[in-house]
């Protein structure tokens, strides 16, 4: 990759203390996001994708244990005072949360909720911010944006709420947009519309696109990272990772796609409290050898900028 990273995650560990033990939702994650690129972050439910996105903006619950560094333009976000962090949220980095259905406040109009961010970060007056909200709704493909800006969220369909949230996240022209499963729970046509929106919208920001939908990631991402049990197991250019996957887990994911035979990966993802020893995927892996359950593999370069966490390449 050329140029300096916009966001650089180093050794990120995220743990949730629970009565049953520490849930290691993210374990020693290293990741870079470069200017203007779209990085697809894929993995099954519970693999730690959402936690990673939320950790970047420090939106996780207060008792979460976070270690490591998240450097945004050279500043470590994890050690930033809360007041400065508030200037990063929404202005430098925008996020579209999962569950678009419940992510808009039911008692304010959508226009008001978008304008709120604009007033806060760009110091626009009320009417100017409303105007900007209408423009943003128009830009994300909401029909009749002037009227819809004055409507409450319950009048919006699922796809339109998703668009409204994308408009909110983009309101202050952030440098990085984190989109967490923006196509989750949408029907095929609506989903297509949202994916098209991501590929069409004018931008000079980077996108971290979190999804469990490999096809969508393939359509949008320039690079892809695959997460399994809190770790990144493969990362590289989208064409390399999805076209010539190096990690058995990535291969398994691709083989489970309907058009590729719908072969599910046997077994289920491990508990994040009691992780398997050695390679975390080894209990489910068809290629596993004796050593896999003993040694924990590191990321190994398997091609140009393409890394995999597997004994096969050691």
């Amino acid at each position: 990759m050329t140029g300096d990273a916009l966001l650089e995650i180093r050794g990120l560990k995220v743990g949730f203390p629970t009565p049953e033990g520490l849930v290691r939702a993210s374990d020693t994650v290293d990741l870079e996001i470069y200017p203007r690129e779209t990085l697809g972050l894929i993995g099954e439910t519970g693999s730690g994708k959402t936690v990673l996105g939320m950790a970047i903006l420090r939106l996780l619950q207060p008792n979460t244990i976070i270690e490591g560094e998240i450097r945004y333009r050279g500043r470590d976000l994890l050690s930033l005072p809360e007041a400065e962090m508030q200037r990063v949220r929404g202005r430098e980095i925008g996020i579209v949360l999962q569950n678009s259905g419940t992510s808009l406040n039911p008692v304010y109009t959508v226009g008001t909720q978008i304008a709120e961010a604009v007033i806060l970060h760009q110091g626009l007056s009320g009417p100017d911010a409303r105007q900007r909200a209408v423009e943003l709704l128009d830009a994300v493909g909401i029909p009749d944006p002037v009227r819809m800006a004055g409507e409450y969220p319950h009048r919006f369909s699922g796809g339109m709420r998703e668009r409204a949230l994308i408009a909110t996240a983009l309101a202050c022209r952030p440098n990085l947009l984190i989109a967490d499963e923006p196509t989750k729970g949408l029907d095929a046509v609506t989903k297509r519309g949202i994916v098209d929106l991501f590929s069409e919208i004018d931008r000079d920001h980077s996108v971290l696109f979190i999804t469990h939908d490999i096809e969508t990631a393939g359509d949008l991402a320039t690079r892809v990272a695959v997460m399994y049990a809190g770790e990144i197991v493969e990362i590289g250019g989208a064409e390399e990772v999805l076209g010539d996957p190096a990690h058995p887990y990535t291969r398994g994911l691709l083989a489970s796609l309907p058009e590729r035979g719908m072969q599910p990966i046997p077994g289920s993802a491990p508990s994040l409290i009691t992780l398997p020893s050695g390679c975390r995927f080894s209990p489910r892996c068809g290629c596993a050898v004796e050593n896999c359950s003993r040694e924990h593999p590191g990321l190994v370069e398997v091609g140009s900028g393409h890394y995999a966490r597997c004994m096969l390449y050691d």
Partner: protein
Amino acid sequence: MNGIYLLKRLITSFAAFCIAVTIMFALLRLMPGDYITMYLEAIYRYAPPDVVEAFNRVYGLDRPILEQYVIYLLDAFRGNWGYSFIYKVPVIAVIGEKLVWTLIILFPATILATLAGIGIGAYSGWRRGSKADVGLLNGMIFIRAIPSYWLALMILIIFAYYLNLFPLGGYVDTSALATGIDPLDVANHAVLPILTLFLFSVTGTYYLMRNTMLMTAGEDYITTARAKGLDELTILRKHALKNAMLPMVTLITFECAGMITGSIFVETIFSWPGLGMLTYKALAARDLPLLQGILLIDTLFVIAANIAADLIYPLVDPRVQVGDDA
């Protein structure tokens, strides 16, 4: 649509009112003892049967119960609520006079308790698990757990008797006989009853507010607000409070209806001449017309509070559209 809805609402409210009035009428007549016998026995240790009979004839109490019921119902709708046995004046006049005194203590107490309950409850729920939350919660549980009559007595003993900061009871000083009623003097007498009522009422509001705030704080739109870069206070004030207030609407309207009911034992303990004490006196003397009148007023206000809550909801929550069948 709204007109039809309102009409339906009024019809059902009217039915509820009729049922309540009927139950009241029946229950009051199930009470043992009657006014005139108890009155005569208290004074002469003996109630001459002919006097009792004459009294009952004058007040129509000798007629069949069903006839009494029909007469009462018709008169109640005509606005004739009868004469109080004790005061010998129209029931409405007695209630009107006492209501003012009840409101003098209950209005400030209810307003203060509602505001404080909402404020403290919201803060407590928002800062769930913090030292402040744990302290406030335990304090509220403590107040709630104390029997309220005992709390009233303790307040009276400590602040009025030992510390001598406030009068022991009543609503004005005896000097009022010479100089007339001084509002400041009344306020001084009202402090302890207001404090007691405040403590009774604040815990309920606090609990409900803390609970709804706990739920609201975990909503996705709160995270969205945080992700926009808003500070915690703005998120609490603008995004959380308005949503958490929705269940409070019902509580607040019923607190307002409760104001009218008065508080029987606070007024009794502090000798405050309001509706509560009136209710107590009327009950003790078996003053049926007065009791009926008091209960009628209570019923009307509870029904009105119900309608008010229904009408206020759509103003607070845009998702609620009153009268929409969809």
